[in-house]
C-alpha cells in the first residue's frame, strides 16, 4: 500500500509539472497533428504534374494531338514552350523544368516511317522518381487516326536521361543530404549555444559588460560558420570517395551557396534562441523546423509531386533552395548565376531573420 501511495505521488507530481510546461504540453497535440499532415501530404511517390516545357518544331495536326494527349495524362504540367533542344537543355540545367519534350520538324514523317524516334523526352534523371514517371510517357499513343500500329509504338518515343545515366540513388541523395546535415547542425548549435549561456547565467554577466548585442551574436556564430564549411568538405569528400558522386560544376560556386545557406541557418538558430528559455525547448523547436526541411524540401520526394500547400511551405524553407542549388551545381553543372532566385532567397532570408533575431535579443532582462 505504501508503495502505491508513493507511486501515486510521483504520477500526480509529473502531471502537475507537465500541465505547467506549456510548450511540452503543446507538443502532445502539436507533434501528431504536424506529423500526420507532413507525412500524409508530402509522401507521395505517385508523382504527377512534373514541370514540362515542349519544343514543338513540327507544329502539325498530329504533333498537336500528341501534345494534348500529354496534357490529359496529368503526368506532366506544361508550363511553357520552347524552340530548340538547346533551350530545353538550358531550362533543365537551371532546374526550372524536370522534363523537356522535343518534337522534331519531320515528326509526321518519322511517325509514318517508324524507323527513327519521333519524340525525344529530355529528363532530369538525377531523381529516379522523375525518371520513372518519364518512362511511363513511353506508353503515350502516337499514330495517325487510321493506322494505330501498337506493336512498334515504343520506338517512337525516346527517353534521354540527363545527369545521372547510371541511375544511382546516392548521386541524387548526397547533394540533398548536404543541405539536411548542415541545417541540422548549424541551427541546433547556435540555438543551443545561446540558450545554454542563458541557463547557466553567463548571459547576465555578458550583458553587463560593454559587449554589444551585435558583437555578441556575430562572435557566437562565427566559429560555427567555419564548422559548417568543414562539414561541407567532409560530405563532399565522402560523397566522392565512397559513392562517386560527381561535382560537375564549380566548387567555388558550391562554397558560395554553402556559405549563404550556413548563414541562413545560423540566423534561424539565433531566432530560436531568442524565443526559447531552455535548451530542451530549443531542441524541440529545432525539430519542428527540421522535419519539414527533410520532407518538404525536395530532399526525399520530388518537389513537383507535392500538393500546392506543401510546396508553399517548402518554398519558405532555406533547405529547399539550397538543395536546388547543390543539385544544380554538382549534377547539372549549372553555374550559380543561372540559379540566382534560389541564391538570393537564401541571402534575403538571412538578412530578414537575422534582423528579427537581433531586435528580439535585448541587452536587458525585462
Amino acid at each position: 500500500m505504501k508503495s502505491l501511495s508513493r507511486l501515486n505521488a510521483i504520477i500526480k507530481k509529473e502531471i502537475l509539472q507537465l500541465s505547467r510546461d506549456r510548450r511540452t504540453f503543446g507538443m502532445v497535440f502539436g507533434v501528431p497533428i504536424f506529423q500526420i499532415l507532413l507525412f500524409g501530404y508530402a509522401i507521395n511517390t505517385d508523382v504527377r504534374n512534373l514541370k514540362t516545357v515542349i519544343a514543338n518544331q513540327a507544329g502539325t495536326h498530329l504533333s498537336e494531338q500528341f501534345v494534348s494527349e500529354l496534357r490529359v495524362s496529368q503526368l506532366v504540367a506544361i508550363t511553357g514552350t520552347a524552340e530548340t533542344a538547346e533551350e530545353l537543355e538550358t531550362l533543365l540545367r537551371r532546374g526550372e523544368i524536370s522534363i523537356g519534350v522535343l518534337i522534331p520538324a519531320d515528326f509526321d514523317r518519322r511517325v509514318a516511317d517508324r524507323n527513327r524516334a519521333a519524340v525525344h523526352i529530355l529528363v532530369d534523371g538525377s531523381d529516379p522518381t522523375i525518371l520513372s514517371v518519364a518512362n511511363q510517357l513511353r506508353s503515350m499513343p502516337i499514330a495517325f487516326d487510321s493506322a494505330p500500329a501498337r506493336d512498334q509504338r515504343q520506338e517512337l518515343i525516346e527517353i534521354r536521361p540527363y545527369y545521372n545515366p547510371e541511375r544511382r540513388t546516392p548521386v541524387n541523395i548526397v547533394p540533398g543530404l548536404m543541405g539536411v546535415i548542415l541545417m541540422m547542425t548549424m541551427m541546433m548549435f547556435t540555438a543551443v549555444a545561446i540558450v545554454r549561456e542563458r541557463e547557466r547565467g553567463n548571459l547576465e554577466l555578458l550583458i553587463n559588460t560593454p559587449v554589444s548585442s551585435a558583437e555578441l551574436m556575430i562572435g557566437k556564430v562565427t566559429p560555427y560558420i567555419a564548422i559548417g564549411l568543414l562539414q561541407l568538405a567532409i560530405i563532399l569528400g565522402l560523397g566522392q570517395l565512397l559513392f562517386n558522386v560527381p561535382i560537375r560544376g564549380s566548387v567555388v560556386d558550391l562554397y558560395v551557396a554553402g556559405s549563404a545557406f550556413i548563414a541562413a541557418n545560423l540566423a534561424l538558430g539565433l531566432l530560436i534562441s531568442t524565443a526559447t528559455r531552455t535548451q530542451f525547448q530549443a531542441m524541440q523547436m529545432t525539430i519542428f523546423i527540421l522535419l519539414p526541411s527533410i520532407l518538404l524540401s525536395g530532399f526525399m520526394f520530388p518537389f513537383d509531386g507535392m500538393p500546392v500547400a506543401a510546396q508553399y511551405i517548402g518554398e519558405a524553407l532555406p533547405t529547399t533552395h539550397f538543395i536546388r542549388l547543390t543539385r544544380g551545381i554538382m549534377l547539372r553543372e549549372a553555374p550559380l548565376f543561372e540559379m540566382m532566385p534560389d541564391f538570393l532567397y537564401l541571402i534575403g532570408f538571412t538578412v530578414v531573420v537575422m534582423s528579427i533575431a537581433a531586435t528580439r535579443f535585448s541587452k536587458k532582462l525585462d
Partner: protein
Amino acid sequence: MVSSEFAIEARGLSKHFGDLRAVSKLDLNVPRGQIYGFLGPNGSGKSTTIRMLCGLLTPTEGTADVLGTKIPGDAKLLKPRIGYMTQKFSLFGDLTVRENLQFIAEIYSFPTRERKGRIEELLVNYDLVPQQKQLADTMSGGQKQRLALACAVLHHPELLLLDEPTSAVDPQSRRDFWANLFRLAKTGTTILVSTHYMDEAERCHRLAILDRGIKVADGTPQQLQAATGMHIIEVMADDPYAAQIAVDERPEVASVTQLGVRLRVLIPERHAQPLDIVRDALARGNVAGEVQSATPTLEDVFVAVTMKTEDRDR
C-alpha cells in the same frame, strides 16, 4: 561629472512586475568610496534595485544618477565603469580560471600590454594561483566567489555592484571576502552590496533596510541601532518556550524572539517601565525568568523596522 559626492543618487525608483511592486519609490544616496549595504529578506527588492542601477532592468518609474550617468537611458556608457557580480555564479564553468580572467580582460578591452600583469596581480590578490589552470566548475564555492570578484574588479571599476555575493560560501570565505572589499573601498571603489546576513550588514559603512520593495530605514549601523524606537529586554528563562507564550500575550510587546535559552523582547519606547511589563507577563504565565535591559543589535533594528511595514499593510 566626478564632482558629486554620491556615486548613486536614486529618486523615486520603482519597478513593478504586473501587480507585484518589487521596488516602490526608492530614494537612495550612496556616498563615493564607501561600502553601502542593502539589507533585506528574500523578495525585498534588493536584486531588482541592483539590476535597475546597472541598466539590466528598466525602472517603471523614477530615475537614478549612477556615476553621473542617467538611468534609464545611458546605461551603455556606464557598463565600462561598473563591475557587477551576479547572485548565481555566472562565469564560464568550462573555462579555466586564467581563461575566464583573460576573457573578461578582452571583453573590457583592457590594454593588451598591461593585461598579463593585471591577471597575475589578481591571481595573487585573490589567492587563485594554485587554481589558475583548473576549470571553474570544479572549484569550491569560496574559490568560485573569489574568481567572480576578481573578474568583476579586473577593469578597475569605479562602482562595484554585488548581489548577495556571500550566500553560497562558508564563514571563513566570507571573512576573506570582506577583507577584499575593504581593500577595494580603501582605493576609492564604491561598493553596493546586498545581503541578508546581519553580521555582514554591520560591516557596511552605511546601509538601507528594504522590506517588500520599500526602504524602511537607512543610515550608518550605529545610527540605526540608536534609533530603533524600542526598548530591548532580554529574558533568561528555564522554560523559554512557555516564557515566550506568556510574554507574547501582553499587547505592549511588539516582538519576541527566542535565541536558545534567552528571549529578546521588543517593546515600543512609548511604554514606560518595560521591565515591569515583562516581569508581570512572566508572573501571570507562572514562568520563572531573569529580566534585564539590553542594547539594540542590527537584528533588533531589522525586526523593529520590518514590523512597522506590517502595521502599515494592515
